[in-house]
């Protein structure tokens, strides 16, 4: 997690909104937990802080494009979309 606030309500909303545009399934793994990356409530319960390591799992017909977009979103600290 590069952005300082971690997966706060705002970045969670941005992430989920972007992820939902793809057909592929999207999961986030953190410390042995797995949540549906298209579920804002799931993402928020991770309470991932700055510096936390998360693993992104994308699976489906548009997985390559989805992964590219989502990684970019994490790298840009959730500022680019909207």
């Amino acid at each position, binding site marked *: 997690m590069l952005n300082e606030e971690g997966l706060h309500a*705002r970045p969670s*909303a941005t992430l989920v909104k972007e992820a939902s545009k793809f057909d592929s399934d999207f999961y986030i793994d953190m410390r042995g937990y797995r949540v549906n990356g298209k579920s804002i*409530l799931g993402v928020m319960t991770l*309470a991932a802080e700055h510096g936390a390591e998360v693993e992104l799992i994308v699976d489906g017909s548009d997985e390559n494009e989805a992964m590219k977009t989502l990684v970019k979103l994490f790298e840009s600290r959730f500022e680019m979309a909207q």
Partner: protein
Amino acid sequence: MNRFVDLGENLLKGTPASPGVAVGEIRMFTHKDLEIPSGKIDRKDEEREIEKARQVLEHVDKQLSNLQNTQSDREIREILEAQIQIVRDPELFGQIEHLIREENRQAVFALYHAFNEYIQLLNQTGRDWIKDRIIDLQSLRDRMIYQIGDPETARRDFKGAVIFVDELSPSEMVEYSDSGISAVVMQHGGTTSHAVIIAQSLGIPCIIGTGWKRSKVESTRMAAVDGNTGEVILDPDQNILKIFNKRELDSEAIRQQAISISRKPNRTACGKEFTLRSNIEFIEELRNVTEYGAEGIGLLRTETLFLSHGYFDVDRHAEFYQKVLEESAPDPVTIRLLDIGGDKFPGSRVSEANPYLGWRGMRMLLDETDLFDKQVEAVIASAEIYPERVRILLPMVSDVSEIRTAKKRIRDMIRSRDGIQAESIGKLPVGVMVEVPSIALQAREAARYVDFMSIGSNDLTQYVMATDRGNERVSKLFRSSHPSVLKLIRMTAEAAEKEGIPLSVCGEMAGKPILASALLGMGIRELSMNTMSIPAVKKLICSLDLETMENLYRELIESEGLHQSEKIIRKWKERYLTDES
């Protein structure tokens, strides 16, 4: 005030939070005591219940999206976006479906419990920023439940309604206001909470801390609300309606009078000029700042913005400061650096036995230099756009060495900017908050290092009287009018005068007409207060001459203690504030 005594259960009393008078139909929404049917359904009704849940979610989705489209405030749009995503959450819906299909529950039950599971999980994360989101989640949950049970509510046509709730989040206040409500009565809430500030800026009467019996309110149709006195009357009869109609007119007249007072020049009866500014914390307060004629912002609080994000976002702070500067042109804006304790630090596990005597304000900022630098950077960036209007205020200082260290760091940061800009903001004034007795006692020395001083009378009183005013057993000792507090203020005022720097008082005492006059009598010419207090303070000061105010100040400072000073204040109130209660 006693005329409603015989109303019994029909009279509720709360704390006035936003002025104005209204009468309307009651709509009650409470997070607690919702009736959730726990009975099982027939297997054949599963699809119908699932469809019911789906429709409610879609309906609320549409309402929130429509509301979002009409909002211009970025913060509120983002909060609404998060709510929309919650309503669309596939896992939430999956859980609802599961409860209906596998446990044969009704849609209401499934919605309620699916939401609650997440509320519990989020609670366990223990993050500060999650608290407001939990209020939002509870209200989304209850909104859907009411909607299933009562299609009337579903239309959310609240025109003219008086809303009874536990507590509202800022985005809910905006939403209710959009649907035309006439007043809000809350069980909880604080007078300086964001939701209350929004009510004030939108002119919605609001009362907080009101206790009521659910069954009583439920069986009542109408309520009369007085946001000036904190009175709520259930089921008002013709007589009471007449009284409230008159109060409504009076309230409007008072508002008009306040506005006309605010247009008059700030001059005492003997012609001496003075300055009144606002203490603010939220963008929504700016509207009243202009309306009530404040000459800029004497205290811009930055803590809530910081805490609501859980980290320091330089761009957001700069954006906020600049918005405030833009709206309060051409007057100055004093930005106070973060006045928080280490316990509020995101992710921090600091726990102190005496937080008010601990690691907070400048003490914390001078250790956490990264945070200090970021905030100063946001202030400098704003000063570049609005030169000569920004002032920087150092909180919770107990020794001049803290001022010197902070000042040097600020100067170095300005110098490291590129030449032309550095020149234009080279004069960025730095001031110190006088709220610790040690600095008041060394005011002369402190004054040599700063460009201005500002007395925080609340903390000063707390430290001088060694009294936590939140503690009811001792709060009667918390009096800013106590001669010992006044003596420290006088020392500070004399030091400021000798060193030729401006001084203002920005605690609550500045917003109390009698005490404000005493401060004028002491020679102080600048006060900063909650915007809503400006008209009453200005009205009294304009009606008195300095000699009278000086007499008041002398009587108070020469009193032997609480008993006498309280008596003096009562006497002056009777003499000069007779037309107000």
